[in-house]
Structure formats: structure tokens, C-alpha cells
């Protein structure tokens, strides 16, 4: 069972029953609130026309040292994507603030990691909203959706 | 061709102190290379390394260092890297060589 980490803490997956589908399947789907799965090397421009009918995107982190997912998330937000953005795979508690600040809404982790790094390690002291150099420097920015 | 197995000791750095330590016959970690257990058969060595690497809260991950028996019958490193590591730097009398001098 997957655990979903959000600012409020751990919760169950409320997208259960709706599976994430690949980009090819998304293209032919008639569904107006798609949940799609993207690899961290996805070709984003190709996604542009699909964005309006996507309700959730999940980006996989093959291991926590591979930071491509952070750039993919940033780019999706720049493209105007305002739906749900989820990171999944090997993301550790110490990366929660980075993920939130890059545009992710939530992280999906497995039970083993949830047991080793329990809820308080994800939310305590990780006051990611309390400010960053980037927010300070680029204060006047026309901020993309977060 | 089967490569001849070179004798080995098991070594790592302690998690808290960071210093180099060596696995002894009694299964404890000694700061002295000479105290280490010398493994001469591959199977016994692999098994011991596996066991050692389960102590994840004590050290940072153990590995084999090639060794030979010195004239006093204690293991000593064959490679200069492990020799330096078992003594300390050559520019100052710091590290293990200093600790030895202090005993």
C-alpha cells in the first residue's frame, strides 16, 4: 500500500481505483480528468495540447539522487499546469521541501520508507513555506501556479 | 584461470569518529591494522564481510584490504593506500602514528 505525504501528514491514496496511464494512452482517451504517469525524462512540449484534460500527473524518481523530476515539475508549472502533481518512488523526507518548492503537491512513498521515515520526519521542521532565497530574490516574479 | 586469493582483512571507518578500524577475530573493531583477523579463504572472508556490513549503525560500510603477514606474525597492508590509512598522513605526525607514540 502506498502512503501519500502532504503538508498535513500521511494519508491514504485518494486516487485509488483510478490508475495513472502513459502518455500514449492519454492521447486517445476521451476522459476529461486524466491521471497520467510521466518518466523523469518526458518530452514536455509534446504534452502541451493534452494539459487541459489532465487532472493529475505522477512523476517517478528512480532513486533519490536523480533530480530530474524537480526540473520536470518546475517546467510543468511554467507551462501552466495547475492540476495535481505527485512525486513517487525513492524520495526521502529530507527532499520534501525541495519537492514542494519545485511545484509538487504530494509524494507517494512505499510502506518500508514510511516505516523508516515516519510522518513527523516529513512534516516537522520542514517549514518549506517560511522562505527561501529564490522567493526573496524573485519576489516580483509573475509566479506560476503552485 | 582461477586467480589466487590474496589474504585480506576487513576494514571500515567508524560512523561517529570517522577513523579507520579493522575487524578482529573477536568480531570487534580495532584501530590497529595488526589486530585484524587475516582471511585466507574466500568463502570465510565473504561471509564475515556480509556480517560486518549488517552493523549499519556502527560504521560507514566495510570492505576488504589486501594484507600479508609481517615478521612478527601480524597482518600488515600490502598497498600503500592502506599503509597510509593505517598510519596517518606523511606531512604531520597526526592520526594513528601519533596515538601510537602517545601510548
Amino acid at each position, binding site marked *: 500500500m502506498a502512503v501519500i505525504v502532504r503538508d498535513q501528514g500521511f494519508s491514504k491514496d485518494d486516487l485509488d481505483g483510478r490508475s495513472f496511464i502513459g502518455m500514449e494512452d492519454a492521447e486517445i482517451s476521451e476522459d476529461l480528468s486524466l491521471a497520467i504517469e510521466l518518466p523523469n*525524462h518526458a518530452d514536455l512540449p509534446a504534452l502541451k495540447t493534452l494539459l487541459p484534460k489532465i487532472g493529475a500527473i505522477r512523476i517517478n524518481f528512480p532513486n*533519490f*539522487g*536523480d*533530480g*530530474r523530476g*524537480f*526540473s*520536470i515539475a*518546475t*517546467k510543468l508549472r*511554467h507551462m501552466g499546469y495547475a492540476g495535481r502533481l505527485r512525486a513517487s518512488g525513492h524520495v*526521502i*523526507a*529530507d*527532499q520534501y521541501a*525541495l519537492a514542494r*518548492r*519545485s511545484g509538487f503537491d504530494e509524494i507517494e512513498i512505499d510502506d518500508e520508507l514510511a516505516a*523508516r*521515515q515516519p510522518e513527523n*520526519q516529513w512534516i516537522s*521542521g520542514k*517549514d518549506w513555506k*517560511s*522562505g*527561501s*532565497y*529564490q522567493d*526573496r*530574490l*524573485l*519576489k*516580483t*516574479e*509573475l509566479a*506560476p501556479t503552485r | 584461470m582461477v586467480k589466487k586469493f590474496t589474504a585480506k582483512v576487513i576494514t571500515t*571507518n567508524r*560512523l*561517529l*569518529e*570517522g*577513523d*579507520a578500524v579493522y575487524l578482529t577475530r573477536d568480531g570487534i573493531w580495532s584501530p590497529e591494522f595488526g589486530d585484524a583477523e587475516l582471511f585466507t579463504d574466500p568463502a570465510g572472508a565473504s561471509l564475515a564481510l556480509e556480517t560486518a556490513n549488517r552493523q*549499519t*549503525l556502527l560504521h*560507514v560500510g566495510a570492505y576488504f584490504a589486501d594484507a600479508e603477514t609481517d615478521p612478527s606474525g601480524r597482518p600488515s597492508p*600490502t598497498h*600503500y*593506500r592502506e599503509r*597510509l*590509512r593505517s598510519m*596517518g*598522513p*606523511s*606531512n*604531520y605526525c*597526526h*592520526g*594513528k602514528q601519533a596515538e601510537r607514540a602517545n601510548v
Partner: protein
Amino acid sequence: MYKYSEFDEFFVRRRVEEFRDQVRRRLDGSLTEDEFKPLRLKNGLYLQLHAYMLRVAIPYGTFDSRQMRQLADIADKWDKGYGHFTTRQNIQFNWPKLADVPAILDALADVDMHAIQTSGNCIRNVTADHFAGAAADEIADPRPTAELLRQWSTDHPEFQYLPRKFKIAVSGSSRDRAVTKAHDIGLRSIRDAGGSPGYEVLIGGGLGRTPMIGAVVREFLPESELLAYVESILRVYNLHGRRDNKYKARLKILVHETGIEKLSREIEAEFAERKKWFAGVDPELIEALKSAFKPPEFNLSRTGAFERRLEKDSGFRAWADTNLFEHRCSAYSIATVSLKPIGGTPGDASANQMRALADIAERLGHDEIRASHEQNIILPHIRKDDLPEAYDVLAASGLQTANFGLVSDIIACPGMDYCALATARSIPIAQEISRRFAALGIEREIGSMKIKISGCINACGHHHVGHIGILGLERAGVENYQITLGGDATETAALGDRAGRGFSADELIPALERLVEAYLRLRDSCRETFLEAYRRLGPEPFRAALYPETGKLAA
């Protein structure tokens, strides 16, 4: 000098607490060693051969007496009474214990310092010309740019897990003292035809395995667009840099494999997207940064004390001759304090030496100190007539070595005496070279000579850009040293050519002696430097000197 804002203070304190917590979570098993390692590296903490090593940032090499004294106190309290200044304007402590590191980081925060991003696969401590704000040849002070980049890159959410480390250097002069061409991004302050400030941007430089000189990716970037452009470079690199092979993961390989034209188009495309919602940096912040680095009030009066001392003291004269550089203000000099005593460890300073340097800076130097990538300390603003007094304090602490730019002013990485990645030692080689040439008494006759030594292919000792580069390798179980010739770290940057087969530690010093003798014999006048002679004559006569047995090049 830049002083921490409330936010800086808040940020570094929070970061220390976060690290304290991470140490605790490593010890209770919440974090595996594999997970903990990149976290400790991003806080400057390595595990070396004998102990942990803490690398403290001295952003763009600028610090003051209070900070220097704190470094001295840290060296005394938690280390072995000394520190090692590195080729990236950092200082390293070689013996801290893991449990003490949070306290050390707190002590650093007390004086506006940190160890953040001095290691790991992220944007590293930004370096700059060590004569910034003082050199007569300066066009623009690079430090406001470097500080802006420091802030922007610190804990940048997108760029903490890059394919590999990422180094940025900034120069504000036509003379390049920051080795900008050997960085992932090199920035050089320039003005466009209309006189607006901006940068020439180079990318893809780097030493290490497959060394490369950076290529110009943008001839002119307006100052106001810097962050958006740098971000675009980083984003392209983060998404497309190789992650399958550590030795092919640096930006230089992406530049090499993609081609600079194509990559430049990709960066420009990203930049065009980025600019759509980039409103620029708050101009007030930029102004505040610029005014933070305003030059001190110089005292233009002269007493003649400098000239009087020159006349009567040959030791002072020798020091003044090599270790002083032209200041933008004629009553002042930039003084280089050599951390290369004959037979010493390049870059090391004892706690007491650090305190002596702090005293001089505070009393006579407008409270400014610089660490140079050449592992020396710079006192950037010393009034000429105060130099005799400064020199006396230096001499009392063994800091008066008059060898800046000479054969014994060697860059050497820690090598296998400390470094876990090393393949050979570098410090003893540096010690022997400096002893040998001092004994021969021909240092001044040889003149400008940059010897740079690395203990492995990672090239922290910048050997590729040394006039003579030395790379320590292992060959059949013993240390072996490979020589490169003709490297250059300045605005005329060049990678050295491999001379031929390597030398054992015993053979190395005699070989260098033959090389230097050949240079002295071949130069067309005593003005022609080794590098000039090498460029004029090519490698052959120098190879012949290194390998007399073959009479010519050994492949």
C-alpha cells in the same frame, strides 16, 4: 563587505538544526548511509582516509578578521590547530568528529559563515578573482554577482540533485585570476557597445578526467537577465546531463557530446520560455549588493616608510618584489601572503598564523582578507607605508616567504595523505620540489613558474593548467607521477600537453631539475618565462630534457 541579512541568519541557523537532526536520524537508522552521504556532503562534510573532513565556504574568497579568528578557534577547539586553504577558496578542517560538526556549523553561523554546498552534486561555492575590489586592472567588482549567485543557488529546490557537481566563477577584469575557463560556467564582466553592464558567458570548462576549456555560449548577457539565463543552463543540464557514468556527468561532456551550437540553441529556447515570467531581480536588492562591496575609504597620504625599508632591508625588498601587486590606488598595494613556506604543506595555516593575519587585516588592512585559489592569503588593501609593519608581523609568524609566483609557490591538493579518492600523494612531492629548488638557490633566476599537483585524475590541484602539471597515479602498486607541460590558468588558458611516461617519486625531482635547466639554457633572455619559452619552442626540447634516454619524445 557583505553582512548577513536577517534572512541569511535565519537560513543558516535553520540549516544547522536540520543537519543536527540528520545526524541524529543517521544514528537511529532513519537514514541509511547512502541517503545520509549526499546530505552531509551538501553541508561540506566528507569522510576521508583518517577522519571526517569539513569544507567551509569562503564565498568568492572574501572574509574579515572576525571570521578568520573564528576559523582559528575552530581549528584549536575541534581540530588539530590548523586549517587547509583549498583551490576553490574554501578552508578544510581535516579531523572533526561527526558528533561535533553541528556545533562547528553553529560556530560558523556566529560569524556569518557556513559550509553549505561546498560538496555534493549541486552548485558549489561561487569563486571570484581574489584581487576583486582592489586590482588596478579591474573593470567591475565581481563580488556582487558572486553573492547574488550564492544566494540564488543556495538550497535551490531544482538543482540540489544534479548529475554532478557544478562550479561557477566570476571575473571582473581583463586579466583572468579566477580560472573562469575551467568552470562549468565562467562569467566575465563586460559592457556592450552602448555601455550597459553585462557578462560574457562561458560554459563547459572543467578539469578532471577529460579536461576542457570553456566555450563562449553568449557573447553578451545583460546584467539584469543573469539569473534567468543561468537557471536555463542549469535546467538543460539537469535534464540532459548524463547520469549513467560519473566520469561523463559534468556539463563539459554534455557540451562536447551535443556540440556548443546545438546546446546553445537549447539553452536559448529554455531561456525564452523562462523569460516569459521572469520579472527580474528586485533592483533594490541588486543595489544593496553593490553597495555592500563599496571600496573602503582609502588613506592617500604617504610617509616614505615603504621606500626607506626597501632601501635598507633586502629580505623586505625580496618580498615586496614578488608578493605585492598593483592596487587601484597608488598609495596602496595588494599583498599576497604565501602559505608555501619552503618544505611546508601548501595551503596550510596554523591557528596562530590565522590570528596574525586577522590582526594585520584589522589594524592595517581595512579589515579585508581574501583566500586565493592558489592557496595563498591576500591582504587586498595595505597602505604602502604600512607594509613594513605588516611584514614584521608576518615574519614573526613564519608567513614572510617571498615566493609568490615562483617555483616553490606550488598548488597541491591533499592527495593520498588525506583524500579517500587519491591515487598518490601530492604533499610530499610539493615539499621536496620546494626544498630542492630553494637549496639550488635558483628560484628567482627561474622566475614565473606555476607548478600544480593533483593526487588523482579529479584534478583538484589544477595540474592541467600548470606551466608544469604533475598528476599522481598508481602504477603496478607504486606511486607514479605524470607530467604535463605548457598549461595556463589565465585569460590565455591552455591545457598542458602530456610529456610522456610517468616517473616514480624518486625519479621525479631530478627530472624536474633537468626540465628547469633546459629552460634556463633555452630561453632567449632572462625575461622569457618558462611558459613563453615553451610556447615558442614547442614541447620537443623539454621532452628531450625529461627523457634523455630516448633523446626525443617517449610516447
